[in-house]
């Protein structure tokens, strides 16, 4: 392991990373955000997902330093409260956790599906390939939102109301995962097609290795770097999609707002002066996505500038 680490530390990626301030800064910010979001039960002043903690009387309390703020209750309400009287800071932290879990989870689902399909299509070729790639085309021509609406409605019916709240996160993960796998499938297929031509694959076949083993052990590891690169973008996309779904009323349950739904909920207050309800979570989401995107751009620039989704 140390050897592998050493190799990694010596790699081109790490070298470029050390010289790139933007990448370092984004990674730093991202790490801070990640840690604070996953540590939210310990660091957040309140638990906003506990309905009993809602206090409507505190609704729309401005940030502590503003007139009308609640400096006496610090650390709660530092950044004010949302329309339901939840401490905004805590809600943002919890919301960011939900957003991140959805983003990462959805990407995992996408990646697994997309890689499996892309790998099969690319390696087996012929009919299988045509079929699978047509499927991806069809899927691409729907928008994610459309797919999400369909699947979301189906899930809700299938699981009933009682468990929906509990299952909302996994369901959204599935929805976004199912809606965006073609990006992966296409990318993986493209690199499988490139790898397949290389002679080490033929060498493996000459050894007599079975197809699945060649696919998984030889080709797959060599297609992972593009997967890694698009994954960053896809995480950001998945979080945006979740925000978009919330905007249309298909997102997380209101009692467990994600960053996206928090923004949407606050939007209506933007014109009325309670700007903090949307601007704080909005900025947090932008910063989060931006840092992921910047890291993704960095990886892409270093590893393979020609990787673009859908290629």
């Amino acid at each position, binding site marked *: 392991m140390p050897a592998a680490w050493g190799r990694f530390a010596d790699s081109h990626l790490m070298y470029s990373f050390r010289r790139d301030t933007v990448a370092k800064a984004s990674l730093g910010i991202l790490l801070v955000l990640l840690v604070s979001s996953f540590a939210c039960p310990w660091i957040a002043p309140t638990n906003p997902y506990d309905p009993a903690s809602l206090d409507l009387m505190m609704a729309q309390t401005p940030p502590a330093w503003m007139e009308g703020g609640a400096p006496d209750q610090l650390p709660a309400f530092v950044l004010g409260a949302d329309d339901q009287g939840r401490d905004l800071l805590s809600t943002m932290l919890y919301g960011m956790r939900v957003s991140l879990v959805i983003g990462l989870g959805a990407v995992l689902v996408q990646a697994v599906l997309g890689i499996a399909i892309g790998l099969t299509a690319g390696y087996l070729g012929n009919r299988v390939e*045509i079929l699978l790639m047509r499927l991806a085309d069809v899927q691409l021509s729907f928008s994610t939102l459309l797919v999400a609406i369909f699947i979301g409605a189906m899930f809700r019916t299938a699981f009933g109301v009682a468990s929906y709240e509990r299952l909302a996160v996994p369901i959204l993960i599935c929805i976004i995962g199912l809606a965006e796998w073609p990006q992966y499938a296409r990318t993986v297929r493209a690199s499988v097609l490139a790898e397949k031509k290389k002679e*080490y694959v*033929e*060498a493996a076949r*000459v050894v*007599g290795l*079975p197809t699945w083993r060649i696919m998984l052990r030889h080709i797959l590891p060599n297609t992972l770097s593009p997967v890694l690169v698009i994954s960053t973008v896809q995480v950001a996309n998945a979080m945006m999609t979740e925000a978009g779904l919330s905007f249309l009323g298909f997102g997380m349950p209101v009692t467990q707002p994600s960053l996206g739904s928090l923004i949407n909920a606050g939007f209506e207050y933007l014109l009325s002066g309670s700007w903090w309800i949307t601007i704080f979570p909005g900025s947090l989401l932008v910063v989060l996505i931006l840092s992921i995107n910047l890291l993704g751009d960095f990886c892409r620039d270093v590893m393979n500038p020609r990787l673009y989704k859908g290629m």
Partner: protein
Amino acid sequence: MSTALVSIRNVVKHFDISGGLLEQLRFSGGRPTLKRTVVHALNNVSLDVRQGETLAVVGESGCGKSTLARAVVCLHQPNSGEIRYRDQRIDHLPPAKLLPFRTRLQMIFQDPYASLNPRMPVQRILEEPLRFHHPNLNAAQVAERVAAVMEQVGVRASWAKQYPHEFSGGQRQRISIARALIVDPECIVADEPISALDVSIQAQILNLMMDLQESHNLTYLFISHDLNVVRRIATRVAVMYLGSLCELATARQLFETPRHPYTQALLSAIPTLGRGRRKRIRLTGELSTPINLPRGCVFHPRCPYAYEPCRLEVPSPLTQPDGAVVACHALRDGRI
């Protein structure tokens, strides 16, 4: 020929590159037709590789050398014809039945940069075939064997943890050879193993291959386009043109008295050191592609001796009195 290790009999290999049904759709004269685009990579090739020899296959780019090599190691299934290994037909065997032959027939590839999996350290690259074919070996035995083979090909055993990109082209080619050797094969198909290397390295690899042939009693099917190399290493030489066999003879016969017009042209074109060159045979006429094969003899559009039968009829390989096999109408009819 009882000594034949690998017999290639009337092998035909076509690649259909026309794609899906929809892509084949054409309109001719207003009616929809399905048109297939077929690459005729091998047309009726017959060869025997004899035990212990080095059979070289030469020819220009795209003439089907690699396809032949791949057909022999069952990477391609021929459209017709058969491949036999020690008189056992292997070309249509299912993968499981083929396994025993995989250890006897191995292959070395052209591109030293693409033929090693960049994500595996040398150790794993070499272990994998061994463990796969001999699952009952224990770790120590495997390690020992790997070390031994690395030694044989001249790669330091201490480099086993390195990844391929840390090696030079020549060293990678050695590792490639080691991977083929590790299952202890009888016959190695080498597809242009040295054409990507520098002259000084070429010599090293060629020498290594010759050494190994002696020590392991290997048989080589050696694919190359470099006639100078072939002249050095080959026992017998087969010359191919556009998927067809033109001439098959011992190296000496071939280089001293080339009989097929194409062989003659090829030999005259080899650059030699120094000004004094033999007279070049100028080939004229359009190059054909394996997609639109000319009728009759595939070489006739460029052949200086072409006459009527060449345009109509595919020449069949005829064994000459001295054992060489030549497929040429003009030669058969005594015109050359």
